Each structure stands twice: as C-alpha cells, then as structure tokens.
C-alpha cells in the first residue's frame, strides 16, 4: 500500500523524536488510571496492541490481512482455557495463548502468501471464517456463551491481579513489550526489506531476497502479537467470546489502523483509542444501534478523503510547515 511514511533511515532526528513521543506516551500511560477508569484504559491498550500488530503487516509489508480476528480470538480462548482447566498462572496462560496464535499465524501465512494483493485478503478472510466455524462447534470454547469468569489469578503465583489497578499496570507492561517488539522489527534490516517488498516486490526478488520467507516471518510476528492482545484482553474482561472471532473484528482492526494512519508508528494507537472511545461513548447513547453504520461511514470517509490517517496527516502537515 503506498503511504507517505517518514523513512526511518533518513535521519536520526526522526528516531529520537519517536523515542521522545514514546516516553511522553508512557508517562501518560503511567498516570492515566488515576484520572480515567482503568478497565476502559485496558481495553484501549489491548486494541492498540492488536492494531499495532496488524499495522506491521499492512503498513510495513503492504499485506492486507482480513483475518486477524482469528488470532485475537485464539489467544483469548487458549489463555482462558489453560487458566480455567489447567490452572496455569496468568503469564503462562498468556504465553501459551500467544504461542498458539503464532502457530496459527504460521499456517495462515504459509497458505495466504501463495497469492498476492486482493487474493491475499480474501484467503485470510476465508481462513478466519473457517476458524470462526470451528470455534462455534468446538467444545472447549463454550459455543455461543464463550468462556466466562476466567480468573485473573496471581502473576508469577505471587501478585494478585484481581484489583483493576494492578491489572492495569500489568497490561501496560504487556503493551510496552509488544510495542517494543514491533518498533525493533520495523527499525531493523528485516523491517527495511519488508518495506522494500511493499514498495516493489519483483525488484526485491531480483535483489536476491526470499520474499516469501520475509512475508511469512512478518505474518507470524503480527499474529503472535495479535494473540498476545487477545490473551491479555481475555484476562481483563475475564471473558473469551465469539465476538472476537467474527469478521467484524477483522474489519474493526483495519479501521483502527486506517483511521490512525497506515504505516505510522503511533497511528494504530491513535486509531484504536478513537474507535474504542467512540464505541464506548455511542453504545450508551441513543445512537447505540447505529454503531456499525457510523464505523462504516468513518471507513468510507477515511478511504476517500484522508488515506494517510490522523497521524499521517499530522506528519504531512508538520513536514510541510516546519521543515
């Protein structure tokens, strides 16, 4: 996907600016639960991680996955199941959930990278629908009811996560780890090659890179982090349900990324915050039944009028006026 991204290799200045922004965000994150309801913040963080993971593929690899809901749901279900049935501690449950999403990402990736562009999107969508139907029928997911009352438990068997504040800082730590993985991936030689594939795949092949291998690794990293987001989310809400596996969820994460800015570091965070806030706000008002229509409208407006997203437009504006 052709997007105006500030190229990381052009200047160290951009890097340090990004780091500074990240430090400010982290500070805000540390004090936020004293001003805003922690459960809402945790929801934002989980979806922000989900969107960042998705953005790694679309924004940096040019790969539009329409099946990321499958990874979110898998993380949630596996974490919920292992904690409830096997009595795992939260961190182990999350690790197992993430590992299962990674494995599923490997299978999806292996199949989907056999085709390009629009076919890639359709294949990932079809595969995630297959997973959805499996979860409807599989006994361990609890069908329509989902897994309810997943205990948050004690972190490392020591620290209780039952309190929202403790849980919040745990989620924040998970988010920072996930975000750092994405940041490191993007700002590595691997990330550069991924961008090269996005810009010109045949040329990258001609330079001797095994394009399929890079795409597959990007897919697995993205799927794992989406799974990490799903695992953490299942602990926050103590619930894993079919909503997470539905294709609407795959659409929502695309919207978050598109709205915030495809191919920008902070775009998905801004997009996820906006969409989650909007959903929370609207679902209590008279417009509750219009939420899907409003999301659809934002989609259309984004695609037609500002394809760079919020962060992308700000970056363009700054570049034009202050450089």
């Amino acid at each position, binding site marked *: *996907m*052709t997007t105006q991204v500030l190229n990381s290799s052009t200047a160290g200045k951009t890097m340090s600016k990004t780091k500074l922004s990240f430090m400010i965000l982290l500070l805000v994150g540390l004090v936020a639960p004293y001003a805003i309801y922690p459960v809402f913040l945790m929801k934002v963080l989980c979806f922000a991680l989900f969107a960042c993971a998705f953005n790694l593929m679309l924004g940096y690899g040019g790969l*539009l996955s329409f099946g990321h809901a499958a990874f979110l749901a898998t993380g949630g279900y596996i974490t919920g199941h292992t904690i409830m049935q096997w009595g795992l501690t939260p961190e182990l449950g999350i690790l197992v959930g993430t590992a299962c999403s990674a494995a599923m990402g490997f299978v999806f990736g292996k*199949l989907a990278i*056999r*085709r390009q*562009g*629009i*076919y890639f*999107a*359709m*294949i990932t*969508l*079809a*595969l995630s*629908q*297959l997973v959805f*139907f*499996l979860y409807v*029928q599989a006994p361990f997911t609890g069908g329509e009811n989902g897994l309810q009352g997943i205990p948050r438990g004690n972190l490392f068997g020591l620290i209780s996560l039952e309190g929202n504040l403790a849980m919040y800082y745990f989620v924040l730590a998970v988010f920072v780890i996930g975000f750092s993985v994405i940041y490191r991936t993007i700002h590595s030689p691997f990330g550069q090659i991924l961008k090269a594939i996005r810009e010109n795949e045949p040329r990258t092949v001609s330079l001797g890179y095994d394009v399929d291998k890079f795409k597959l690794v990007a897919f697995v990293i993205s799927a794992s982090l989406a799974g990490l987001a799903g695992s953490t989310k299942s602990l926050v809400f103590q619930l894993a349900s079919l909503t997470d596996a539905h*294709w609407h969820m795959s*659409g929502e994460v*695309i919207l978050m990324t*598109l709205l915030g800015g495809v191919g920008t570091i902070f775009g998905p965070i801004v997009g996820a915050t906006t969409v989650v806030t909007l959903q929370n706000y609207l679902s209590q008002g008279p417009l509750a*039944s*219009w*939420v*899907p*229509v409003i*999301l*659809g*409208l*934002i*989609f*259309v407006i*984004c*695609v*037609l009028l500002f*394809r760079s997203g919020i962060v992308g437009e700000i970056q363009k504006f700054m570049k034009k006026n202050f450089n």
Partner: protein
Amino acid sequence: MAELLGFPPQVLFGQLLIGLINGSFYALLSLGLAIIFGLLNIINFAHGAQYMLGAFVAWLGLKFLGVNYWVALVLAPLVVAAIGIAIEKTMLRRLYKEDHLYGLLLTFGLALIIEGSFIHFFGVSGQPYSVPAALQGGNNLGFMFLPTYRAWIIVASLVICFGTWYMIERTKLGAYLRAGTENPQLLQAFGINVPLLITLTYGYGVALAAFAGVLAAPIYSVSPVMGSNLLIVVFAVVVIGGMGSISGAIVTGLMMGLIEGLTKVFYPEASTTVIFLVMIIVLLVRPAGLFGKEA
C-alpha cells in the same frame, strides 16, 4: 426403494438439490465479482449487501407497492444497479489511481453502512416472501420430490449465467470488455468510452447480485444479514476457481454447491467448513486456482 451408499435416495438427492441451488447462488455471485474484478481490479465487498438489497427491494415492493415477483425480478436488479452506478460514479471512480486494496476497503465500509441501516430498521430476523403462484407445488420424480420453485432457481440462474458468458465471449460489447480487461489505455485510444464501460460493468455485476437476491427471497427469509456470510463463502469459491475465466467462475460455483450438499449427507458437522477446506487444498496443489491463469 433401495438405499444408495447407505442413505435413502430422498435424503441424498434432496441434499444434492439444495447443494445445486446454493451452487447457483455461488455461481451468480462469483460471476458478478469476476466481471467487476476483471475491469475495475477491485473486489466488491458490497456484493453481499447488494444481494441483500435485491431481496429487500422485492420484499418492500410487494409489501408497499404491490409489485409482484416477476416484475421485481426485473425491477430490483435495475434499482440496485442504479445505486451501484451512483456509488461507482461518486466514490469508486476516485480510487482507480490508488492501490487496489482501497477499493476493497471502501466497499467494505459501504457494506457496513447498508447492512447496519437495514438491521436498524428491520432487525436481524427474516421477513417471509411467498413463492409466486405459478411456481408453487412440485413434481414427484419417482426418486425424489422436486419443488417447482427450486427447479426454477436452477434454470433461471443457469440461463443468466450462460447469457452473461455468451455476451462476454461472443458479442462485440463483450469483446470491448475483454479488451478493457487486457489494456484499458489502448482500448480508449481506439475511441471506446472506457469510463462508461467501467460504470456499466459495475452496474451489471451489481445487478447480477440483486437478481440472485430476488431469486433467494422466497426460499431463504429476507434478512439484512443474508448477504455477508454468503459473501465470505463466495470469496473462497473465487479463490478456488480463480477469477481468470467467466466459465470457470460458473462451474466452480455449481461444483462447490454440490460438494457442500454431499458433505451435508455424509458428514454434516463439516458442511459449513468444507468449501474453506477445499480452498486450502487448492492453494496447496494449484495456487493460481482451478481456472486461474496468473501464477
């Protein structure tokens, strides 16, 4: 009567008939998707919503204006095609220069808007639409009972599919369309109005979806969500067949319907997933699709 493969023939043929009917819808929808993709290079994610719109135009027409089934069969595709043409002229047109994925995202947003509005006004439960008088009843073929309306669906969709194939492969207009798929700039240089051709093609593809929607109205209940789940299956069908050929889209659609019907007889648990499994096998064995040309 003797059993066939351990199943009473009524069950086997009954499911095969349902499979063939589903296959007719897959064929009509994947044909529309393939035609639109050929010229516009976008995947029309609103296809399911437009199929639903077709059914709703027929239902609303009958309820409020007394428009009967036969008129609706012509009128609904025209109405929905007009909406499609408006979408193409005002929105899709702006995206042809951009990455093709934006077309997918735009039509996805439109699908959310259309589906969401209809859910708001009509709820998710289905509205009944009765079978027209001339097509009620059925015939006993000896080995199974064939309801007339179901036979009509198969005949009507096959006629439309064949007609479309003939138009594209054997007529002058079809030759323009195929030329436009190969090289739109060159076609325009020869004096053909390519933007108009694109608009009409989108309209025709959308009309096919609406036609399928009207056909479906009497046998499936008319509901706002009738299109979206069907569309994902059709996407899998398109991946299996490859969008390279018109006849390929039709044949794959019918074939997948039959496979789904057979699965319902032999292993019902897998009937919702079998088409996706076939897609996986095809991707492993022949990634370009059964009828696909590109690697």
